[in-house]
């Protein structure tokens, strides 16, 4: 650390001259320091306000463009050719199916990997630190690459796009998030809890599952829900794996529609009603994702 050098500027000539007239007035140097402080404070507040304004602007744009098209028909009709009064039903169903399946795949594996890192992979375990590093790397890997990866792994060998490969891509995306939050949450469980369990004669797996995991339940659920929110809005990995579909399909081995893909396809269209559907879809996705986030943050605060 560099040595903190604070110049005792207030003892300069100017200050002393100022204080002689009975009432203390800041000298020029002190005034400059004060002004600099005000400027820095002002700039910081402006920077923060800009970020807040961006959020407000995004929400406002979504509401003003998307709310118009939100109707029962949008939610119940499937996508259709322009002008036919199509909706987003198949995209919503596809999104729910793929995200649900992805969660079913990612949550158990992520939980177990997180347990391993926290319970068996403390200091000195090189394998565990490698896994930790790789999880971090996967977490920061561009999501489009995960799409390419699953395309090579599942789409090319089977010869066609499928909802299943979309779900796998989302699972790969969510896995590192679940791993790291599970580990962090389990680490907060005091060691005395584990010792108490062991002293009662419980086996290690029992201690981990019914004591540690149970007391870290809330945090672990938070991690899984946040992963769910992240998956819900992802477009790039689905582009190359589940491709999108105009018809209602619940067959996991066929191409499947999803909300983000529908938004992507419709946002650049030249038909008025398709663009409207894209905005409505965007409104649905964003408010779904934000709702999960807000709920999780509010409940974890208590």
């Amino acid at each position, binding site marked *: 650390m*560099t040595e*903190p050098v*604070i110049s*005792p500027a*207030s003892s300069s000539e100017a200050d002393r001259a100022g204080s002689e007239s009975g009432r203390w007035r800041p000298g020029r140097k002190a005034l400059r320091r004060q002004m*600099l402080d005000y400027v820095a*404070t002002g700039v*910081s*507040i*402006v*920077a*923060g306000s800009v*970020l*807040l304004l*961006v*959020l407000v602007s*995004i929400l406002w*744009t979504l509401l003003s463009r998307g709310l118009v098209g939100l109707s029962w028909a949008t939610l119940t009709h499937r996508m259709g050719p322009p002008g036919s009064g199509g909706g987003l039903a198949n995209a919503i169903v596809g999104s729910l199916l793929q995200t649900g399946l992805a969660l079913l795949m990612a949550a*158990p*594996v*992520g939980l*177990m*990997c997180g347990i*391993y*890192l926290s319970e068996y992979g403390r200091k000195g375990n090189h394998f565990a630190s*490698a896994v930790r*590093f*790789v999880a*971090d*790397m*996967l977490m*920061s890997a*561009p999501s*489009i*690459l995960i799409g*390419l990866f699953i395309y*090579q792994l599942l789409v*090319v060998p089977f010869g066609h796009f499928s909802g299943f490969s979309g779900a796998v891509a989302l699972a790969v995306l969510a896995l590192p998030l679940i*791993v790291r939050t599970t580990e962090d949450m389990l680490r907060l469980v005091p060691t005395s809890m584990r010792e108490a369990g062991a002293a009662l004669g419980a086996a*290690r*797996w029992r201690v*981990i599952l019914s004591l540690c995991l149970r007391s870290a339940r809330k945090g672990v659920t938070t991690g899984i829900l946040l992963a769910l929110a*992240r998956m*819900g*809005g*992802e*477009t*790039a990995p689905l582009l190359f794996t589940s491709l999108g579909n105009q018809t209602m399909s619940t067959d996991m081995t066929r191409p499947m529609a999803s909300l*983000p893909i529908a*938004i*992507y396809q419709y*946002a650049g269209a030249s038909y008025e009603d398709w663009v409207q559907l894209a*905005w409505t879809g*965007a409104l649905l*996705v*964003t408010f779904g*994702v*934000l709702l999960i*986030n807000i709920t999780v*943050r509010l409940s974890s605060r208590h």
Partner: protein
Amino acid sequence: MRMTPVLRSSHRRAGFDAVFHGLLLLCSLLVLAMLGGLILLMATGGWQAFTRFGLSFFTTVSWNPVKDTYGVLAPLLGTLVSTLIAMLIAVPMAFGTAFWLTYIASGRFASIVGTTIQLLAAVPSIIFGMWGFQTIVPFIARDVQPFLNHHFRHVPVLGSMLSGPPVGTGLVTAGIILAVMIAPFITAVMVDVFGAVPPMLRESAYGLGATRWEMMRKIVVPWSRNGMIGAIVLGMGRALGETMAVTFIIGNVTTVGWSLFAPRSTVASLIALQFPESPEGSLRLSSLMALGFILMLLSCVSLALARCLRGKRQ
């Protein structure tokens, strides 16, 4: 004789424990295998392009599906420049916001504002793209570029950076959107890092008569320098690989030039756009995979860098 059941049960318990441990180990191996598979499949997928073009892959500008020649220079430069612009905007913004949240705003207010800003990080990236196309693109095309062009056209280097028709899509627009997307993330890490500065140090600075800004600049910043750089590099990694938002607003033209306001393309946006038109097994798809491999390397290097810098602090 009476010992047998106890022994058996303890045997069984040890067996369960071993199975449990094995299962956990297997899941951890799966995570390792995933990254290994990701890198391996990218490398094998891009092999055809790498062997075909060799080093000229990195120096060729044209991305020409008609002649079947591909070069990564244009998208790579697009990615690097848009990320650079994003960092130039996002870092001061995140620093200021973190300063505000940690030391200026009062507790309850700061936590509300902090949570709200974190919600911005949760907004899906495709939404940023649509919002940017709806609001930022017209703003740049109508106001910013004509204004700058009018005043700085004759300045030697700056003039060429501002040239081009005012379409609104381009590197600056992408940089702005990327900055807004990664700033909440950098802010969150910076708030953590600033919060870890020992209160004793801060209070002694105040005791010596430092103003808040002087305390920030001379105590907090030197103390948390490594953590801050780590946060910045992590944010950079995110900006490098961002796809959906950029695809909407970059213009998607594979050219190289001085202008920051002309349509360009980035690695990720090129992959997203060209993929549907690339048949399986073609050189074009292989070139896209090679691009993906390069992007993966960039992202890995930035993460390793962030790791090193953050590790030093502890």
